[in-house]
């Protein structure tokens, strides 16, 4: 007699899979709970946190946006190592607009979001044909290149950057702008990826030849995915410019490329919610470890290694499985 562990969908999941099967508050709550959790959670958090931790929440949300943007690209089969490109592009565009024309943040942020997405798409258009590691290399190099251009040509303030930029009116507007943007990105893009358009994007990742032979121009769809991801990243950058009231070379730093990937891996790729969850674990963790000084990076790295070894599928997938399924041991005869 051997024993085998099997996983079975919970009855409530089976019953509530189709919307017409909903017939009790319990089933509705079962469906609504995971969706309400981030909304209610974020709003409550903003009230109970101290000013310092509100700033952390703000930076967590920005990294969550970058992680979501990374995940959109990853689901389309483009592994980006350069979220800093999107972030920096948005940051500089907003900064320049505010510095030269004195436009208010309520204009610069939306304009930088759209135009940042557009510029990033145009920059990466020539390399859309590249697959796998080749595409990744280009995305890694582009932000590093742009930062050297700014340094060498001394445009946009050069190494000094642009300071004294306009700020958002209040702490609360600041916080709620990013929280609302994060929730909109999470739910909106999850919906998009679940639609037939999203199916085509995932199809490109899975089997691009099959998508091509369906008469679909995969480069056009990849460009659209790039624009979406680029816009999300550019929003994060533009927003941060007005929070810091400064934009400079650090916006192209490697942190903005690496941390979103780490967040996506820890949280669980392919779900958008996973990478966001990852950002909500990693960024506060790095804040807590700040007290350790130089050892901080060691503990941080150790934590990452333990997580990827113990839960390679990601935290979100693990939690989702526990929520939808139960496990039991059954005896099998061999």
């Amino acid at each position, binding site marked *: 007699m051997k024993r085998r562990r099997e996983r079975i969908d919970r009855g409530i999941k089976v019953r509530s899979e189709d919307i017409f099967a909903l017939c009790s508050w319990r089933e509705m709550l079962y469906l609504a709970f995971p969706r309400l959790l981030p909304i209610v959670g974020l709003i409550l958090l903003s009230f109970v946190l101290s000013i310092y931790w509100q700033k952390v929440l703000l930076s967590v949300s920005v990294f969550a946006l970058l992680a979501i943007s990374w995940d959109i690209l990853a689901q389309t089969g483009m592994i980006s190592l350069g979220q800093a490109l999107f972030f920096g592009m948005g940051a500089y565009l907003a900064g320049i607009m505010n510095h030269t024309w004195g436009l208010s943040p309520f204009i610069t942020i939306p304009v930088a979001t759209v135009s940042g997405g557009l510029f990033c798409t145009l920059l990466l258009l020539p390399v859309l044909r590249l697959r796998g590691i080749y595409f990744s290399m280009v995305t890694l190099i582009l932000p590093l290149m742009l930062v050297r251009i700014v340094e060498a040509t001394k445009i946009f303030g050069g190494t000094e950057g642009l300071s004294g930029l306009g700020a958002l009116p209040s702490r609360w507007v600041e916080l709620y702008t990013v929280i609302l943007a994060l929730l909109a990105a999470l739910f909106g893009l999850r919906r998009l990826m679940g639609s037939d358009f999203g199916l*085509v994007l995932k199809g490109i990742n899975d089997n691009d030849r*099959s998508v*091509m032979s369906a*008469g679909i121009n995969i480069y056009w769809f990849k460009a659209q995915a790039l624009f979406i991801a680029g816009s999300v990243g550019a929003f994060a950058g533009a927003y941060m410019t007005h929070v810091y009231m400064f934009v400079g070379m650090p916006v192209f730093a490697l942190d903005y490329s690496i941390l979103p990937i780490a967040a996506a891996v820890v949280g669980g790729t392919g779900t958008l919610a996973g990478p966001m969850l990852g950002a909500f674990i990693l960024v506060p963790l790095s804040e807590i470890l700040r007290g350790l000084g130089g050892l901080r990076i060691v503990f941080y790295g150790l934590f990452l290694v333990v997580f990827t070894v113990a839960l390679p599928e990601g935290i979100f997938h693990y939690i989702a499985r526990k929520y939808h399924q139960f496990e039991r041991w059954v005896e099998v005869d061999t």
Partner: protein
Amino acid sequence: MSSSPILKVSDLSKQFGGVRAVNHVDFKLTKGELLGLIGPNGSGKTTIVNLITGFVKPTAGEVYYKDRKITGWAPYKVVRLGVARTFQMVRPFYQLPAFKNMIIPLYSPRVKGLAGGKYGDRDAVALDLLEEVGFERDSFVAYKPASVLPQGYLKRLELAKAIALQPDLLILDELFSGLSLAEVASIVPIIEKLRMEGKTIIMIEHRLKELFRIADRIIVLNFGEKIADGKASEVMESEEVKKAYLGTEAG
């Protein structure tokens, strides 16, 4: 042949490094014909299909579809004109149910164009198409994830994906390979029905017995060259064909 050919391949060649995969191949195809493309392994059958559908660009030669030069066009543009193909290696989206696999071809601009600019209810169309190729409507097989479907159903799914594009020219790359006799016997009527609808079909096959029963014409390839072209019975009489086949099979 009074009407102009639907597909004309003239002097087509493809060289991969030092290998001549396809060497000066010529043929024409009239509307409604079912052409069998056979030959030993590595004789360039799939390369010809890749050249016609634009997955590979030819070294020399031209491809005309409905009197239009399509040499070297991108695959998605060729499909929009009405050339659909299946792949030898079926790679569906395993985690998705079978009918969701149909969404991608149904999302194609060609389908949208033919339907007058509207997509319609893609899920319903997908289920209809799958029923056409033998996914029984009263079973749950169309709703099962592709990962649990047997090979026979995966091949049918691949066929349905091509039919969904409503092609005029359908290219089937080894549709029968890896299938049991019974499975092949159940797919043959589907192909015959497609012919009745007036579709032109090219079939690459190793299952010669089944192919000869339905094909109008056979082209035999060996080392990238066309060595015979004609009715099945005539073709197999040719000395060169016998040599090509016996040469590989005996070895």
